[in-house]
């Protein structure tokens, strides 16, 4: 429970359905002095969650995950930028914090299921395995970050709000009399405390801002960058390069600390390689298959042919070039709204 409307309604729905519900809140890491702005575990959100739990007459506990969160989520965020990729800490958080650390705590408390306020649907197939599907509200769908779930975890997962569109969830909150009904949707990374990630990197990974050359594809020097971590593939604004045509970030060459830029028609690629794939069914589909592939949480699906290869990898060939394939983000494969799996873009 985060104190927000989704997890509050999730708890209320389960209680209404007759489950014995225990409220758990994760205490996550914040930079010293910024604890009040961490979006998911401020003292305010905690007292909100506590109020909701009390109204629902369920026990409520806060689980301290600060140390583990730092050593996994934050550290891999910093490492990712140091390596020159654009990491997605929410994926690490879902895999290691929510669906491992918290999951184990829930089971230790005697729980049969771990329920969250994620917008996603789980469904049993005819063969008795579990499927993860997109939520009915496509605009709120969070199945992208849940592609990390295994059969074991999915069997014990519940997503009570996944069957409802967001406006309906707010209505439910009101009808349950929950004080969180009107709370704003959370945005951005919790530990950035509403700040630009570049500021966070400047403070927490000072070595990262090593400037270097900006080149185009033909090797022509166009200026200097402030540190590769501060740029994202496809980025146009803030390059500080004078040019008659708009320039975009094409590539980050970490070895040579060089930022490669180019024009819009140079942008985009039809292929990617995904690593460390989790196939939700446990096994990849046999052979090459057609799928809708999502390369960022906010990206549109793109049709592609996916070829699973050994060592939990897959190569993806898009029907059309994709503009912002970004190493460090996940490529998630969908077929008829079912999440087949996903992995990190190399």
């Amino acid at each position, binding site marked *: 429970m985060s104190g927000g409307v989704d997890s509050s309604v999730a708890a209320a729905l389960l209680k209404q359905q007759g489950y*014995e519900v225990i409220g758990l809140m*994760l*205490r996550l890491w914040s930079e010293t002095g910024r604890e009040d702005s961490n979006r998911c*575990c401020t003292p305010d959100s905690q007292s909100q969650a506590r109020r909701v739990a009390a109204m629902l007459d369920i*026990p409520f*506990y806060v689980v*301290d995950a600060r140390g583990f969160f730092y050593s996994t989520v934050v550290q891999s965020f910093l490492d990712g930028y140091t390596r020159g990729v654009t990491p997605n800490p929410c994926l690490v958080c879902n895999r290691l914090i929510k669906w491992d650390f918290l999951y184990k*705590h829930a089971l*230790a408390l005697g729980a049969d299921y771990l329920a969250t306020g994620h917008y996603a649907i789980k469904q049993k197939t005819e063969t008795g395995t579990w499927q993860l599907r997109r939520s009915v509200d496509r605009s709120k769908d969070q199945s992208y970050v849940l592609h990390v779930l295994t059969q074991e975890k999915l069997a014990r997962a519940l997503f009570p709000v996944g069957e409802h569109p967001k406006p309906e969830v707010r209505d439910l909150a009101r009808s349950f009399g929950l004080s969180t009904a009107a709370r704003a949707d959370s945005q951005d990374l919790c530990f950035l405390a509403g700040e630009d990630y570049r500021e966070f990197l400047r403070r927490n990974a000072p070595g990262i801002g090593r400037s270097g050359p900006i080149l185009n594809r033909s090797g022509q020097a166009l200026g200097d960058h402030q540190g590769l971590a501060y740029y994202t593939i496809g980025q146009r604004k803030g390059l500080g390069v004078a040019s008659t045509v708009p320039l975009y970030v094409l590539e980050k060459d970490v070895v040579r600390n060089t930022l490669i830029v180019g024009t819009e028609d140079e942008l985009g690629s039809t292929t990617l390689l995904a690593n460390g794939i989790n196939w939700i069914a446990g096994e990849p589909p046999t052979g090459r298959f057609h799928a809708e592939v999502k390369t960022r949480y906010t990206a549109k699906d793109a049709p592609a042919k996916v070829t699973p290869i050994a060592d939990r990898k897959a190569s993806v060939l898009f029907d059309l070039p994709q503009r912002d394939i970004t190493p460090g983000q996940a490529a998630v494969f969908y077929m008829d709204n079912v999440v087949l799996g996903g992995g990190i873009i190399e």
Partner: protein
Amino acid sequence: MVDPVYLDYAATTPVDPRVLERMLPYFIKTFGNPSSIHHYGQQAEHAIETARETVAATLNCRPDEIVFTSCGSESDNLALRGAALGMREKIGTNQIITSRAEHHAISKTAEQLARHYGFRVSWLEVDKYGMVQPESVEKMISKDTALVSVMYSNNEIGTVNPISEISSICRAHGVPFHTDAVQAAAYLAVGAPSLGVDILSLGAHKFYGPKGVGALYIRKGTPMLPAQTGGGQEAGMRAGTQNVPYIVGFAEALRLTRGECEQRTAHVHPLRDRIIGTVLEEIPDACLTGHPARRMPNHASFAFKDVDGNLLLTLLDAAGFACSSGSACKTGNPEPSEVMTAIGLSRDWGLGSLRVTLGVGTTPAEIDLFLQTLPGLVEKARSLK
């Protein structure tokens, strides 16, 4: 869901139905303001003065040496602030001596007196049981000492301090001595003259009285300024209309506690010893915190190595047992408490504290169940670390 087994009587106790019975007439029927001239006022005044006499009889002191407050913490605040300022006004002394294992009501007040009022606070070290050695008071006390404050028994680890010895040292130096007896009053003798203390704090809800009422014994002649000023109630020591029903409840709870102290002790003491024995025998890397013998008869407290004490409390609650810990913190921000640090526990032990405190409602069957459950939960908490 069945109510969890309550093993947190040091945090608070349920109100004794006999106490509640005594309080009820003073909400609607005898509701007057004790300061009013009329009949209603006189009735209310009669109620609180009778309560004061009852308390005085229990403490073996004069009624005009009792000041009613809103809680134990307020009593501690009045004691420290009032005596420090009173002594400064009368004698000009500026040193406050207190221990490293006090309740925050004392330590935070002392810190404020130092930071904003120019007093000098000297902190008495405690031994590994959390006990203050009288010799250390003797060593620290000086011509400039305004007040010594040492708790009677420790809320976290149950250790009982040698109050009489410390009070004779203070008396010999002519320095007022305060003791926080909020925890102790539930089981120990709180006769003020026999303890030799000058100021003593009490709170009703630790001995089956209601929350929201406390008292302070102030030996006649002790220099004191009020901490809360206003209408001059409570002999000018504590302004504000008295909380008549709660004061009546306080007196009745204290009276019953004195009368039933022996039988309550006989009930909890063997159960507590069973808890201590079994835990130390059956759980690896566990130690008793606080003194093995000189401790509250209802109080068992432990430290478990490499256990998140908060998580252990969560697991216990989910398993149906309500306990507490030295670093109890609902917000998931555990730090070893000052007491754990003061008795010399390292962080890997200090974070894993557990306090189990018993009361009149505790049954042997509950303790059996608790002792069957705890070892597995400690193991579980360790495995999640």
